[in-house]
């Protein structure tokens, strides 16, 4: 029930936004988040964005994964 899906913000209209999820477009509510811009990625749950995805943190986790993989396969 706590499924949340990463979606790209395409258009913002006050407290509503159009987002793209795997090619499909959907209208969602923005009432629970601040400072969202077109192009941001948000996590969508039950018709609302529940936060903005931190792209820098995502990159850092991926770097950590690469380091772990290098340690094992080296």
């Amino acid at each position, binding site marked *: *029930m*706590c*499924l*949340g899906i*990463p979606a*790209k913000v395409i258009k913002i209209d006050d407290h509503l936004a159009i987002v793209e*999820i*795997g090619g499909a477009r959907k209208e969602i*509510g923005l*009432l*629970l*988040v*601040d400072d969202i811009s077109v192009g941001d*990625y948000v*996590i969508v*749950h*039950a*018709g*609302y964005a*529940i*936060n903005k*995805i*931190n*792209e820098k*943190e*995502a990159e*850092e*986790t*991926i770097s*950590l*994964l*690469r380091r*772990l*993989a290098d*340690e*094992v*396969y080296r």
Partner: protein
Amino acid sequence: MRFIDEFRESEYAKAIVDKIHYISRKNVKLMEVCGTHTVAIFKSGIRGLLPAAIKLISGPGCPVCVTPMTDIDKAIALARQKDVIFTTFGDMMRVPGSLGTLQKKKADEGLDIRIVYSPLDALKIARDNKDKKVAFFSAGFETTTPAIAATVFQAHMDGLSNFFILPVNKTVPPAIKALLDTAELGLDGFICPGHVSVLIGSNAYKFIAEKYKRSAVISGFEPVDILLSIYMLIKQIEEKDARVEIEYKRAVTPEGNKKAMGIMWDVFEPCDADWRGIGVIPESGLRLTKKYEMFDAVKHFGINVPAVEDKTSCNCGDILRGLKEPPECRLFGKVCTPENPVGPCMVSEEGSCSAYYRFGANG
């Protein structure tokens, strides 16, 4: 898809599994609290990749599974009111109450019960049907409750007088406390729910390390996320360094989403709640605050259903608390199957019994 595919790379998964095998010494018991994690773990076969010393057990983390019979009876009583359109998330349709399920009542009595994906859809139905009264079955943990709170807030702003909710929402930290107080469980660490934590933040779990000296890692939902979280937990446990860490850093912060939680605490306040199979956990439920009381469907319609004792002979209660595995219940796979579920753990796709039935012991 971006932010998903990267966390499904088999090369990363294999490397972490190797690392886990390398550092694992002690016998440890870890619980994944969230039902969405349970499904991801079974679906990706993670249990079968771990050393025998690491035991994963599934917790109570599915709001559908822990909704007591009395609340289902209230939902049916509401759906039976004149001119009511009852709206609900799909999962709740098949949960048995003492009078049967919403799905069966819809079929047998022709009640107007509609499945919605979002509480916003229920609000739209209310706007489009001013001559009817629309009630929404408000179930969920902190991931979902702010979205429902925002919808109630919106209805209040719009002065909508034909929209109501049946609140059965619950909060996760009091349930984790109750599990930690169940001594016979002997848990060493928790894989904490990712999306609940987006809202409440990692600080909400400090008590796990500080008071109970147990480890906690907040995990994302892809297989690599979960494996990395298990690795972080084993590292903490082997180094005797119980802390609260975040693996799911791309979405979770220590403080959580303060704006969303502000809306949630404006609309709801804590109350004691009955968890199906577990019993009453103090301050683990939510009811509407005075300001939003007029949206309470039970009060508006004067619904009064008798409290019922759950007499089904299934072991969902012990399974929800991690005391038993699904095959230890004598109904599992025989009388109780996903097509014909007896207990709530088999009803919900995210219930431990359903996941175990569909994917097998090791996924």
